[in-house]
């Protein structure tokens, strides 16, 4: 029994991979219960006034796109259904807009008939978040200068709807966060001062750290990790990658629990 305490890691990984692959081919179809937090986030975005302009900021890179891309896609669907004007971009996360661009084109342009420069715009990634944010609070076009395709941003009609980032022009900011700068920087430099509600999509690893901001109301809502993304997808009625991955999450959680139990059985029955 003591050997249960010293199982080779390679066996643990092999079993995890086999189980993972099996579940992908034979899904369990477990229902995903929607939490209060995700429901609150969904309601908050859904109930913005008609014709609102929202900023979606994908502050992440390839490492976190597994968790955050489904949230981004779901946000796009929700905002497009409500016909909000959408401004997409970030600062200091060069990969974010590049990763998101194909989805933006596919969903907004092709599926919902959004017109670039009129109904939505992508301003790409700007250097130095603090400098960009301070500048955008008084002059958004001046802070951005060019769009994702390096064209002068002032030529697009949608820019006239957002001369600066303020509550008057921006109904909400939706930030997908995985590090620094991230949602906390948006809060500190933009949302706290302007009063614009901040909705955050967060990786599971950072969710415990962000709970104080949710509790204090500084974050108007939060989509917490892959589970939150799955709940959000079920609310908007779109089965995306997050919902499909929940069975894998369940099985891996059970497997890790089993490993912990086995390790402790070995530990407790060891010869002292």
């Amino acid at each position: 029994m003591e050997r249960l305490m010293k199982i080779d890691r390679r066996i643990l990984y092999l079993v995890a991979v086999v189980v993972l692959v099996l579940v992908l081919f034979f899904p369990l179809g477990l229902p995903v219960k929607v939490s209060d937090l995700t429901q609150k986030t969904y309601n908050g975005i859904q109930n913005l006034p008609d014709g609102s302009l929202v900023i979606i900021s994908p502050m992440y890179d390839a490492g976190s796109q597994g968790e955050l891309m489904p949230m981004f896609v779901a946000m796009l669907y929700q905002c497009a259904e409500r016909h909000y004007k959408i401004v997409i971009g970030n600062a200091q996360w060069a990969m974010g807009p590049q990763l998101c661009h194909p989805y933006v084109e596919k969903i907004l342009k092709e599926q919902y008939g959004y017109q670039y420069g009129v109904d939505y715009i992508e301003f790409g990634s700007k250097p130095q978040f603090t400098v960009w944010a301070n500048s955008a609070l008084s002059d958004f076009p001046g802070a951005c200068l060019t769009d994702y395709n390096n064209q002068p941003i002032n030529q697009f009609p949608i820019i006239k709807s957002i001369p600066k980032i303020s509550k008057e022009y921006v109904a909400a900011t939706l930030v997908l966060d995985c590090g620094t700068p991230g949602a906390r920087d948006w809060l500190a430099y933009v949302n706290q001062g302007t009063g614009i509600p901040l909705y955050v999509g967060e990786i599971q690893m950072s969710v415990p750290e962000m709970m104080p901001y949710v509790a204090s109301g500084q974050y108007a809502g939060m989509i917490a990790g892959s589970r939150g993304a799955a709940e959000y997808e079920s609310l908007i009625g779109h089965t995306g990658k997050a919902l499909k991955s929940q069975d894998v999450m369940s099985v891996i959680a059970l497997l890790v629990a089993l490993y912990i139990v086995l390790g402790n059985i070995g530990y407790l029955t060891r010869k002292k």
Partner: protein
Amino acid sequence: MRKEGPMILTVLSALVVLFNNYFFLGQKWGLADPLNNWFQLSWGIALALGFINLTSIHWKYVQRRREGWFYSIVIMVCMYGYLILGLEQTHNGPQFDWIYQNIFTPLMSTIFALVAFFITSAAYRAFRVRTKEATVLLLCALFVMLGRAPIGDAIWGGWSKFVSNWLMGVVNMAGYRGIQLGAAIGGFATALRIMLGLERAHIGGTGTQ
């Protein structure tokens, strides 16, 4: 002057940034903006130093035919090749973007995916009922893990609510607030120590004045 010079520069820069952040006139005049630009420039120059360091090390590996020297050649080819491609095409260039989207991005995702497996082995090794505190840690880990997956709700309907409303929303939040407050003040104090010249490790000093 070798140590005093950088210290004076540190203190002056810190005072400018403080003035810019806290005082209305500082923000109006944008005093810290040139400093931000110079910081970006110095980062770029230091990146060139880093390039030289990497090249020097890997070139030596190739010369000495150290184990895995072939990969040193791969590193240098990729490093300089992508640099030249980027300079020629900019980040929107077709080949540059293709390499970014189809090679670099999947590689990053792959390494990040390793975290899941490492968490598995770390949990197996670390969560043992050695002490009362370790037992509490173990139980919390099990509860949160199962509560965040649909299987938790399948076992007991109120699991995810218990986890998110009480464990995460009350217990975890209290602990995190305490750690974050302490860490924030610690960060403040570290910055003040450097500004006041009490800490000089970053300029190669022994630490105090």
